[in-house]
Every structure is written in C-alpha cells, then in structure tokens.
C-alpha cells in the first residue's frame, strides 16, 4: 500500500433483498457487490469499468456511504467510516462528493444555479451569505460558466453546461475525493471532450482524487491512472492505464477490449468475442463468476473463486490461468 492512501475499501459486500414484504422474509438476495477491495491514493484517478449490472454504481454509492454495506469496511484518510452514524458522517461528507450521470435529473429544476452550487455550503453552514455568493461566482468561472448564470434555472442550460453546474456544486466544499458516476456518458461527443478536459484540469488544480465510474473503456483509459474491471459484483483485474489496453490479463478484460469498436477505417467487424449474457447476480456461478462465458475455462475455475494476485507493477488479476497469473499476451 502506498503511504498516501486516501480511500481504502476492504472486502466490501452489498446484498439487496429480492421479494419479501413487511412481514415476510426476502426470497433471495442480489449480490450487487460481493467482496471488493481497492485503494485510491491522494491525487489518483481510479477507474471502475464494467458492463451494466456489474455493481460499479453500487460500489460508488457504498464508498460515499449513500448505501450501507452488508459487510466490509470503507476507510477515508485512515478513518473507518463504515459504521459512522449520520451525524458523525456529516462533517466527513465535505471531503467526498459525487457527480452523477444524468445532468437533467441531478439538479433541482426549481432552484437557481447559485442555490444549487452553494447548497453544500449551506448544509455545513460555514460561511456567511455574501461570501457564499462570491464563492459561487468563483466556482462557476472555474468550470467555464459565467457569473451572469447565477440567477438562471437549470432548464436554461444545455446538458454539458448542467454537468458543469454539477461539478461546481461538488467542488464547493473543497472535497478530497470525488466519485464521478458516468459523468460524461449522457453528453454528446463534442461536449464530452470539454467535460473530460475540465475534470482533468480540476484534479491537478485542487489535488483531487477520483473514483471514475464508466462503461466506456476509451474514456476511462484516458482519464485514469489505474483501472479496475468489475464483473458480477467483483473486481477481476486492476491495471495501470498505460498497460491496460495492451497487457491486461483477465480473459474478461481482453474480451471487453476486443469488443470496443475502434474509430479506425481499417478495423473490420471482429467476431463476437463473448457469447451470451451476464449471469444473474441473484445466483452467480460458483467458482470464478466469469467461468460460464470464459473461452479458457478449466476445472478449477468452476469450483474455486480466484483471488486477486499480483502479476506486475500495480497490476493484479483474479484468474486461475497460468497458475494465477492470468492470460498472457
């Protein structure tokens, strides 16, 4: 572990009940996050990729303590926040903020931009009103909006501008950690680049750490220092961004990479790399969760769940291939 660890997540588990009612027991459990460990260093941008339903959003919310974990621990700056009460958590919330995917539903349509951006400040009641307005202006300019936008309502802005408002709001309490859940997925290509560049600049300027959640491998590779790939509630691989595309070792990561259509006219339609769908997280396969779709499956994979093993500098993989070293290129 590097010494400047900001976020440390250990064996985190979240199971959601299915069925059942007020008096009856749930009939089964969705294992949304099932034993996940990772850490994020100060100033690091850590990517979480995976397909829909892999648990990446749930994981982001667990980190923020917007959901209570079933088991495991979350440590922020060395402090265990897993079991803190709401009131004890309140001051810590200033240190971690979240940016949501949908810039339309994440801003209150009846609030003016000033109120939206300064709402976190009001919640923590730290500075007088006049200064709050000043601060809001400074933040808006920082994210590329104008002071004149303060008295407008969200509907007067485009998607990209709304996302900027959401970013300004998250920065307002000077957080150390930002969980960005698909922050550019709802944006058009030309606007996406603007927001990616903005997030990149802000990270340097404010020394932020990101947990950057996305399904888009190209965006995550670009934005992050380290990338974790999730499948069915578990991390199957974490790799530094500069080896991710060429030297990743989990068969699932390789399949994901192969499936990305490259903006290159030389590329032909590749053979569908993976057959079938992701199994249900209610009843995940025994052993390695990926074994039902893995082209390299062997006996051990069906029985024993692989754990993350180190295969290189900051590079870990959970796969039984090559005695736990994963697929080799």
């Amino acid at each position: 572990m590097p010494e400047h660890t900001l976020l440390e997540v250990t064996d985190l588990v979240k199971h959601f009940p299915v069925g059942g009612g007020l008096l009856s027991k749930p009939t089964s459990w969705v294992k949304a996050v099932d034993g996940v460990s990772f850490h994020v260093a100060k100033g690091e941008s850590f990517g979480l990729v995976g397909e829909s339903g892999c648990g990446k959003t749930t994981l982001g919310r667990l980190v923020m303590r917007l959901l209570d974990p079933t088991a495991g621990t979350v440590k922020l700056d060395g402090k265990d926040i897993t079991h803190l009460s709401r009131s004890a958590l309140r001051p810590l919330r200033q240190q971690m903020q979240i940016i949501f995917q949908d810039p339309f539903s994440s801003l209150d349509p009846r609030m003016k931009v000033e109120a939206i951006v300064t709402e976190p400040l009001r919640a923590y009641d730290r500075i007088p009103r006049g200064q709050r307005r000043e601060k809001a202006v400074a933040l808006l300019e920082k994210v590329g909006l104008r002071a004149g936008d303060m008295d407008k309502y969200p509907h007067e802005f485009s998607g990209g501008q709304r996302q900027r408002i959401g970013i300004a709001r998250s920065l307002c309490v000077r957080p150390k950690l930002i969980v960005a859940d698909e922050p550019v997925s709802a944006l058009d290509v030309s606007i996406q680049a603007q927001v990616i560049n903005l997030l990149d600049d802000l990270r340097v300027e404010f020394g932020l750490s990101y947990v950057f959640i996305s399904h888009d491998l190209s965006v995550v590779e670009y934005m992050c220092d380290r990338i974790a790939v999730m499948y069915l509630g578990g991390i199957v691989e974490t790799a530094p961004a500069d080896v991710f595309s060429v030297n990743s070792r989990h068969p699932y990561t390789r399949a994901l990479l192969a499936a990305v259509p490259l903006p290159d006219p030389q590329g032909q339609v590749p053979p569908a790399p993976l057959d079938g769908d992701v199994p249900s997280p209610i009843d995940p396969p025994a052993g390695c969760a990926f074994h039902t779709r893995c082209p390299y499956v062997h006996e051990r994979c069906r029985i024993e769940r692989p754990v993350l093993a180190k295969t290189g500098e900051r590079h870990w993989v959970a796969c039984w291939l090559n005695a736990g070293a994963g697929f080799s290129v």
Partner: protein
Amino acid sequence: MEENLLEIEDLSVHFHTPEGIGRAVDHVSLSIAKGETLGLVGESGCGKSVTSLSILGLIPSPPGRIHSGHIYFDGKDLRSMGENALRHVRGRDISMIFQEPMTSLNPVLPIGRQVAEPLMVHHRISRQAALEEAVQWLNRVKIPAPEKRLHEYPHQLSGGMRQRVMIAMAMVCRPRLLIADEPTTALDVSIQSQILSLMEGLRHETGMSLLLITHDLGVVAQMAKRVVVMYAGQVVEVAGLQDLFERPFHPYTQGLLKSIPRLGSRAAGKKERLKEIKGTVPSLLDPVSGCKFADRCPRVFDVCRERQPELEAIRDGQQARCWKTQFSERSGRYA
C-alpha cells in the same frame, strides 16, 4: 454508378412550436445504393433521427411537418403515396429498429406474435405459418430455444435479447432497406459487438441496404463504407470511410475526430489533451444567416457569418459544406 435504392432530395422538416419554427432538417439530400451501408453521424438534435423518420412518414404531426423535398424509394416518391400505400412499404420493403428495444416492443404481447405480425399483415399467411417463420428468424438472430421464447414477453428478456427480437421483427419480411437508429447505444460493448456482427451478417446474406444512424465513430468505422455527417439539421460532409478518417474536410468533422479519446493511446505512451470543440450547438429555432458551425469553428472567415455555404465536391465521393472549398486548401490537408 450503382443504382440507388433510396434517394432523399432537398428534404426540409419543420417543427412548429410555440417558440417558433424549428428547422430540424434543413435541405438534406442523401442516397443509398443497393446493398450499401450508409453511416449517418451527428450529435443529438442534428436531425439524423428526424431524417430517418420522414422516410417512412413517421414524423409526429403536429408539430412536425415535411416542408419540402422528395424521398424516392426504388424510383417511387414516398411522399406522394397515400397512407395506405405507405403502410405496405413499412415493415415490408423498409423496416426500422430503434435505440431502446423496451419501448419499441409491445409489453403485453408475446414476442412470437410480434415477430410474426408483419408476415401476417404483409404476406397474409396464417398465424401458424407466420409463427413457424418467426421461430426460424429468432433462431437466426441467435436467440436460444426460440420455440420456448415465442411465448415470453419483452420484460422477460435482457436488453441484448430484446434488440435481437427487434431485428428479427424488422427482418422477417426481408426488407430491402433497414434503418437502424442508434441500434446499440443502449447496449453494453460485448452485446453491441454481437448485434453489429449480426446485422452485418444479415446485410451480406440478404443484399439489403442499411442506413445506420449513430453518434459513435467507432461503430461507423466498423460498419459503413460511406458516411454522411450532419450538424444542426444540415449535411456538412459526405465521404467514403477512408477519406472521412484520413482526410476529413469540414472543421466539424475534423473536430469530432480529434475530440474522442482513443483506446490504446495511454499504452502508446501519450496522453494528449483532447481537442474540444468549443461552445454548443446553435438552437434550431434561430435562423442563422451564415454557416451554422461558424460560432464554434476554429477556421472561421468573415464570409462564414454572412452567407451559408453549399455542399461542394472536394474529390470523388467527398463533399463538404464549408467556405474553405471555395478557397485554397483543396488538398484537404487542413491542419
């Protein structure tokens, strides 16, 4: 010159709103040859979906209205056809698949019925025969155990399976043109790649033409041979795939290509700042006198703000709507 299956000539579609007239499609012309895959690229609101909906007369009216232009399918003007005649074209000669399979399938009908329906309507064959054909198509789009699935409802299927059902439904009458509007945008990458190769296989096998509407340049690169780029209701560039990626002419096309992060760039040891296109798309409500891209264009001249450029040929198979065509850099090596 190959024979064109579809020709859109000077199409304008206007939306009449309380705020004014929105020119969603503004003098658009394009053509698709027999057996060709044409990519139609652009960002939200650029008019790509409205263009495709007007082919089949599906523009919600009011507020929308085809203001002018012609749409020829196999030589026949679809616009002058009556609703009855058009109904025979829809689903039989031209069919369409949409982005969100959940909202385009009927939630209260079993999928077998839905796949069989076009056959019963257009070919007037019995339900039994239509269902048998439906099973074959479900099998061809690789839905496991199709006989059993016939009786299932859309909510019982995953997103990828639903999109397969949509494709089976669209293909069952063997259309000559398939319009696919963002067919894989709602799907995960591994499922996207399955659906794309399925569509490409079917096109190859049946010789149909494919109009593929997408915002994803990666998807275009894999599927299309020729690409039309739209911006703010207009066609701004038409190019062969190779030309589009290697020598894009319009500053908007160039900007789009530079603004996307490329997978593998980090491994190549470079993290170059993405080149963003500044500003936002203009409102379709305001009449713009000059080029619609002028406010965001890094190469803007005076004339760009005064008069609108026409779509001009640059080289064989490539056209652009840009005043640059009238000036020097005909070589296309505009930095």
